[in-house]
């Protein structure tokens, strides 16, 4: 186990996040001779898509599928490359001078980096429905995590709700593992087909097409799929039933576990805190960093690869990581040999095929992104949709100003689970666009650190002198 005190004071390249983008980037850079460290806060590498790839207890390869096991090769390559890979390492700060604040087992260090690749991936889009804070309501990604990493499968009365490829994949994985799903509530609006249709030919030719159809068939063969435009989790101290409906039709279903999913969005917190410029992506309804073709951001020396650069999926993430790493090698060690950039770019381009169709088809309905009334928007500070809307009506123009009034975004999650909701609500209420409203100015630490951890930073030379004098 690498300790904080084992870290060098500086590295050529610091890679943050050990998913496909981070693993591919670290492997390529280290092999080209850059001193490279990869930090990941989880107990193992793999990110979310290849979660627990090095120690998953799910031995039957059919359960998680071959796309999952493809991650093993990436992890092995990174390990063999000579990059220092540190798990259980939480990066809590990155600033425009590329100083990286990291904590390992309660000890903090500041590490200088000549280049930084942010590969913090994606997170699930907030899905604020009434009752979503009740115990027994969990994100679908969460259920997938405990399946991959701990071999835990739902076995009570289980309902899966939402839409998007990951939801169907999880449903199939749970079923293959012998788990139980009582119903899938599909929240995707049918009218999405109108905009998606133009991209259908491209999609049909992409690998997603065959895979997607197979998954849908696999799930539909075993589980009732019900299309809904309303969803509510009901319970006192925990989930008791799921209430859903379409039009005037309302149904209730007893449930122990409700798994929610409506796609993924870039995890922008670290890049924002580092001062990276971001822009609104209207197709994917999220903010993403502004990047050049090598994934360089607006901050010199900092690039963003993987789904954190905009949602494109796990295979694309690895290629993006390689492109960012090639740029880092070229900047620091131009004489080192690297893979042919054009070939990597072509691979990446192929991965983009079919994404437009998926994005438009799975675009979550407004009502599931812009809640009303007493539905909690901010889980940390327990702020409701009504409070956010009312505060916007009072003249509050942006999420930053709103913090002072509602504390919304000031809790430990720093807006990760509500930032988009708040931005969209303010935009809706004020008749403007999310692009215009903007996002939170993120303040470090991007992950909370204890006072003791902060106090554990090595005493700087200047302070030592001040004390001696």
């Amino acid at each position, binding site marked *: 186990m690498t300790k904080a005190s084992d870290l060098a004071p500086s590295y050529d390249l610091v890679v943050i996040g050990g998913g496909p983008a981070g693993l591919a980037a670290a492997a390529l850079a280290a092999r080209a001779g850059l001193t490279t460290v990869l930090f990941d806060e989880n107990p193992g590498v793999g990110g979310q898509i290849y979660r627990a790839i090095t120690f998953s207890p799910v031995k039957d390869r059919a359960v998680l599928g071959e796309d999952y096991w493809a991650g093993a090769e990436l992890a092995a390559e990174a390990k063999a490359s000579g990059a220092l890979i540190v798990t259980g390492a*939480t990066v809590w700060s990155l600033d425009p001078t590329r100083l990286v604040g990291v904590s390992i087992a309660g000890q903090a260090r500041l590490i200088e980096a000549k280049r930084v690749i942010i590969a913090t991936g994606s*997170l699930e889009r907030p899905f604020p429905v009434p009752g979503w804070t009740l115990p027994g309501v*969990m994100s679908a990604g*969460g259920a997938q995590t*405990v399946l991959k990493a*701990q*071999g*835990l499968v739902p*076995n009570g009365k289980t309902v899966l709700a939402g839409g998007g490829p990951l939801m169907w994949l999880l449903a199939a994985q749970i079923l293959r593992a012998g788990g139980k799903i009582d119903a899938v509530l599909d929240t995707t609006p049918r009218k999405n087909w109108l905009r998606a249709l133009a991209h259908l030919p491209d999609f049909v030719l992409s690998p997603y097409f065959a895979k997607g159809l197979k998954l849908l068939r696999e799930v539909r063969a075993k589980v009732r799929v019900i299309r809904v435009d309303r969803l509510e989790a009901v319970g006192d101290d925990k989930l008791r039933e799921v209430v859903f409906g379409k039009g005037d039709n309302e149904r209730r279903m007893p449930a122990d576990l409700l798994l929610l999913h409506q796609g993924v969005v870039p995890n922008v917190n670290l890049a924002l805190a580092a001062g990276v410029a971001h822009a609104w992506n209207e197709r994917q309804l999220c903010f993403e960093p502004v990047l050049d073709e090598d994934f360089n951001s607006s901050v010199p020396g900092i690039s963003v690869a993987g789904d954190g650069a905009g949602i494109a999926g796990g295979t694309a993430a690895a290629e993006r990581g390689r492109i960012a790493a090639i740029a880092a090698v070229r900047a620091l060690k131009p004489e080192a040999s690297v893979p042919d950039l054009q070939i990597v770019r072509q691979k990446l381009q192929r991965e983009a095929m079919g994404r437009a169709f998926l994005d438009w088809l799975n675009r979550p309905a407004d009502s599931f992104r812009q809640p009303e009334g007493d539905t909690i928007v901010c889980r940390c500070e327990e702020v409701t949709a009504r409070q956010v809307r009312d505060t916007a009506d009072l003249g509050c123009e942006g999420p930053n100003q709103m913090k002072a009034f509602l504390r919304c975004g000031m809790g430990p999650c720093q807006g990760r689970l509500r930032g988009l909701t708040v931005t969209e609500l303010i935009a809706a209420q004020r008749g403007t666009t999310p692009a215009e409203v903007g996002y939170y100015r993120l303040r470090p630490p991007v992950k909370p650190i204890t006072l003791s951890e902060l106090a554990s930073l090595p005493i700087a030379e200047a302070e030592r002198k001040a004390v001696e004098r």
Partner: protein
Amino acid sequence: MFKRLAETGAAVAITVDGRQIAARAGDTVAAALIAAGIDHCRTTPVSGAPRAPYCLMGVCFECLVTVDGVGSRQGCLVPVRDGMAVETQTGKREAGR
């Protein structure tokens, strides 16, 4: 809510609020709580509402627990260790407990 697919990991003994629970090597604290059927891990500091692990990937901060005396740790990021003492958190509980 959840069952274990295969009990492959070695048994790890941890306590939750003083009660022994059987965790497995490879569990995070949050996963161990879920596997043990513990339906909430804290109450919120604002309204006292019960909360349980939600995202399991370090972003939601719902699985905050006290681990070996250190409050507000993200249970989904902390691997279990033999002898670990986990406490669920009620309300305004952190420093000066």
